[in-house]
């Protein structure tokens, strides 16, 4: 009855069967369907440059979502990521005013991200506080600091070399952000699925007590994941700031919702313990395609957010409704 019940089947399904029935396959089918629908719905959709532009809809959020996926699999959550983006952007903006070089700016952005992540991680692991309350608090605190610094003003005047991270292209229509997204997807995929650390993440999320008794330093794993999430928020902040070319304290407002949606849509269990990086990657494409396709059809942003919200609830509700109907 409750979602915590786990059944252990007598016989495992064959690998092929399991793969065909997996969440990722379903999601991929949805992505293909949306792509096809969009291609027919708008004549401007199948254009390499337009599609390239569309990737900006999700690359920054997806970078955070990779780290967030690991964090959620480990049974924690970080709602402060959008505020970390704002704080890191504010720090970079302040540095740009005194003539910092692009390399320095990137370092500052990443460092602020790591510090914020460490702050969250310390409160959660060292003090044993629930991550949802801590990060609701730091969500206000971090963005609050940006508001104190900036008020109703904004920072601009970033050096020309800084533009590359958000506006540059590596090759033909492939932007730097898209390339970074691909590299990070592989790195996080390897980290989660092929390393001891990745197994530890699943173990911590499934049963922290058992993980502790089997020799996993649970708090250290969680702390590292908060650091990683902070770092990725810093990376996203560099890209977003570079792309927009200005910093206001409201930058990236509400981004945490889309990041969490992306992670949950990607098949990560919000209660921890299961999920995959390929799932999150496909979810990123699904969300990017939906928003881009609707944008081409002149659907206003706020209406898209209804859809994102419905998607978030729907992807969890539909399988359960299906199960109830069949069960």
């Amino acid at each position, binding site marked *: 009855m409750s979602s915590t019940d786990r059944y252990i089947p007598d016989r495992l399904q064959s690998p092929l069967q399991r793969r065909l029935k997996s969440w990722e396959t379903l999601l991929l089918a949805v992505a293909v369907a949306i792509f096809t629908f969009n291609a027919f719905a708008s004549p401007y959709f199948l254009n390499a440059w337009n599609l390239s532009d569309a990737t900006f809809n999700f690359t920054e959020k997806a970078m955070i979502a990779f780290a967030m996926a690991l964090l959620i699999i480990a049974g924690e959550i970080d709602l402060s990521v959008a505020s970390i983006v704002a704080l890191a952007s504010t720090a970079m903006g302040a540095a740009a005013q005194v003539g910092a070089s692009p390399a320095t700016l990137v370092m500052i952005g990443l460092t602020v991200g790591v510090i914020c992540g460490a702050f969250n991680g310390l409160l959660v692991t060292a003090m044993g506080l629930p991550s949802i309350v801590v990060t609701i608090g730091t969500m206000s605190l971090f963005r609050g600091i940006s508001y104190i610094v900036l008020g109703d003003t904004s920072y601009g005047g970033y050096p020309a070399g800084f533009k590359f991270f958000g506006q540059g292209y590596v090759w033909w229509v492939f932007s730097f952000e898209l390339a970074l997204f691909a590299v990070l997807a592989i790195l996080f995929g390897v980290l989660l699925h092929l390393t001891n650390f990745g197994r530890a993440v699943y173990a911590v999320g499934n049963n922290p007590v058992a993980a502790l008794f089997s020799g996993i330093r649970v708090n250290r794993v969680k702390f590292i994941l908060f650091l990683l999430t902070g770092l990725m928020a810093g990376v996203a902040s560099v890209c977003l700031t570079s792309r927009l070319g200005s910093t206001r304290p409201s930058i990236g407002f509400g981004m945490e*919702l889309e990041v969490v949606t992306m992670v949950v849509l990607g098949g990560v269990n*919000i209660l921890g313990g299961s999920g995959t990086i390929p799932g999150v990657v496909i979810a990123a494409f699904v969300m990017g395609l939906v928003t881009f396709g609707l944008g081409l059809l002149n659907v206003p942003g706020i209406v898209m957010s209804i859809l994102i919200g419905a998607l978030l609830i729907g992807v969890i509700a539909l399988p359960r409704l299906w199960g109830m109907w069949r069960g």
Partner: protein
Amino acid sequence: MIRRYLQSREAILSAAILVLIAVIALRFPAFITPANLANVFNDTSPLMILAIGQMIVILTKCIDLSVAANLALTGMVVSLLNIAAPDLPLAVTLLVAVSLGAVLGMFNGILVWKLNIPPIVVTLGTMTIYRGIIFLISKGKWVNAHEMSAPFKALPRHVFLGFPVLSWIALAVILIAIVVMTRTTLGRAFYAVGGNPHAAVYTGLNVGRTQFWAFTISGALAGLTGYLWVSRYAVAYVDIAGGFELDVVAACVIGGISIAGGVGTVGGAVLGALFLGVIKNALPVINISPFWQLAISGAAILIAVVLNSRANRTRGRIILKQTEPVA
């Protein structure tokens, strides 16, 4: 008995609020005039009403992030209703507001109860859906003061026995909540379900249904506040009370309501709200930019949650005293 009260959360918080007011009064004596304090109470009324609803939800181990969106949607609906039928009696308007809010809350509750979806996912989703619906029904337009009928706007500001009706409504909600939470089976059920869900099942309580009622009450109070909000500020648009859900959760956390469920009082929630209300009203008086408010409430949440965890750390109870060595 007295000693227990002095050590209670409410006493400490009351003391903190009094100290805060005293410090402000040292520099700005005008702050402690009865008229101004009444004004602070009146200004904090919406937060207090919402914090009580949120408290009930948190008691049952859930969280309701959709309250501000619920408030805004209900506010918009009653405003549009007022334009369409200016002569509608206020009682009907109030009834519509409370019932619509309750229905929106029930939607959250059903998803949590029947489909077992984690409350944070449900309410993150409905938060954006409700905001989006406001845009759809208002087509993004504002409802301004001149479009609202005079009685519609007058109610919360109408002075009755020296206080505005808004304050009286908040007072009534507080009193009813105290009675319900301490003197009715439903009220005790909220505590039981959050304190120990398994034990609650064995005592014959339906955990999901109790959570459903918690969301319904939270929604109904959000709906009530929706009308009060738009009529008091005489404006309704998509973004009213944006981010207010964080203040509401903050008030609860500051008021000592444990996010793990089962622990908290109406008094705590009200004092938590008043604490934030005093800070918010004091900032302009002591000449600090209102941009500080977000960071201060973030810091207040973090300090409160750290203090809570210290206070709740059980030292283990001695059931049998060690026997005295027989001489």
